[in-house]
């Protein structure tokens, strides 16, 4: 049967199939994303693919637009131009209701934790689950306990308020909140910034553990190379509002990209202005 089909047609069909497989494998697709604040261009035509079940780490120095990129991806910031697709569904300029629906499958760990001051640990962790399923107090407590355990914390802190927790604990509670409804995509905004090396490693290990347990796609932004090496499967480097390099973690050390080389090795001289 195959022999009857002309070679050119067979080749094109194969290319199409490969393209379809590759496209289906992409969870988040960012195309030509632009964002400026006044005259300052922060994102200048970002193109980025986040593969399904992958762990993408976006590297970049302070002020290079990492946070703006991740916040634009989830809709906290509206881009000036460009497209962000989640599972091939456009998310730029959609209604608030549609966006909230998309966000039901996402978790987000903020740099400072962003726990709600007025709610205790249990209420913080189960905030979204409570809204989705109207849990009774017993179920709420059980779920919060379970999530606290998965981030290595004791249930003794259930009734404490965020102000009563240390920075590391706040970050872990925030992580528990982000994973409470088993999201399919998790975003981490500088997960180890401001933590001591031991606590930073605890968070790194938790991210890897949670990612593997949930089978989630993760996007992490960081400038911490140690953290990046532990968490990443794939790496992208952002500078001057553009993605300067993308590749796998293994390719990172052998890449000949001058921006990446300077960043990875922490050099003060190179194309990255300091």
């Amino acid at each position, binding site marked *: 049967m195959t022999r009857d089909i002309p070679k050119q047609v067979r080749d094109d069909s194969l290319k199409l199939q490969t393209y379809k497989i590759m496209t289906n494998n992409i969870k988040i697709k960012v195309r030509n994303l632009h964002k400026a604040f006044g005259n300052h261009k922060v994102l200048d035509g970002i193109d980025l693919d986040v593969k399904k079940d992958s762990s993408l780490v976006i590297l970049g120095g302070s002020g290079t637009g990492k946070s703006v990129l991740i916040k634009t991806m989830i809709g*906290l910031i509206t881009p000036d131009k460009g497209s962000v697709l989640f599972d091939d569904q456009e998310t730029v300029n959609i209604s608030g209701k549609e966006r909230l629906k998309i966000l039901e499958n996402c*978790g987000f760990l903020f740099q400072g934790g962003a726990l709600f*001051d007025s709610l205790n640990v249990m209420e913080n962790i189960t905030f979204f689950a409570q809204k989705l399923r109207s849990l009774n107090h017993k179920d709420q407590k059980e779920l919060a306990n379970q999530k606290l355990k998965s981030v290595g914390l004791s249930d003794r802190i259930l009734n404490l308020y965020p102000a009563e927790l240390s920075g590391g604990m706040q970050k872990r509670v925030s992580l528990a909140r982000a994973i409470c409804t088993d999201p399919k995509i998790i975003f981490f905004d500088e997960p180890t910034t401001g933590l001591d090396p031991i606590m930073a490693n605890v968070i790194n290990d938790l991210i890897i553990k949670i990612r593997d347990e949930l089978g989630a796609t993760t996007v992490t932004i960081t400038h911490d190379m140690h953290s990046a090496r532990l968490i990443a499967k794939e790496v992208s480097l952002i500078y001057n509002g553009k993605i300067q390099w993308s590749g796998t973690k293994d390719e990172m050390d052998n890449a000949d990209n001058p921006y990446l080389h300077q960043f990875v090795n922490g050099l003060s001289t190179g194309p990255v202005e300091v």
Partner: protein
Amino acid sequence: MGLVRSPIYFRLIFRQLLTIGYFSLPVVAMTAFFSGAVLALQSYNGFSRFSAESAIATVVVLSMTRELGPVLAGLMVAGRVGASIAAEIGTMRVTEQIDALFTLSTDPIKYLVTPRVLAAVISMPCLVLIGDIIGVMGGYLVSVNKLGFNSVAYIKNTVQYLESMDVISGLVKAAVFGFIISVMSCYHGYYSDKGAKGVGAATTNAVVSSSILILISNYLLTQVFFS
């Protein structure tokens, strides 16, 4: 209309009713009591020159219900609650808690603004009604105990010229002031600039803009009701 569409957070509305209404009661009551008392004293000083002391009770009750009750309660609540709302929401903005609400698939406007606006609109008329009664009582106590008025005559004069419209207009004003305070405070908090300076400015702007708008809208509402 979007403000009051589902989901409505009844627990949060109840909590705000306590914060805005119940906990503002002492400050509104004190303000109303002493305003009523001072009004009685000042009116006596002026009216005694024309032997019109019997009008004091009427002046006190009409001033309290039509103007002083709602305006003073509005200004006091703007200072107490408006500042607190702006600071709380401003801090939530600065510490990314509002962004966190959004990522948890929760509309920050419905979660933060709607309960506060509803609670303020409901609780302000209640506060003003209580304030009116306490203010009139302040005038009564001064008039009877200090100025030597007859208790029965004073009460009779108080109710004689009081019309339901006097009270209703004050309560409508109170509801409008509640709306102004909550919306302005939430607005300034929600769009607060970053850092402590931003939150400080949001708080100041919330109180100042609420107070000015209360005075302007008071004039406009008085014109609508009484001219």
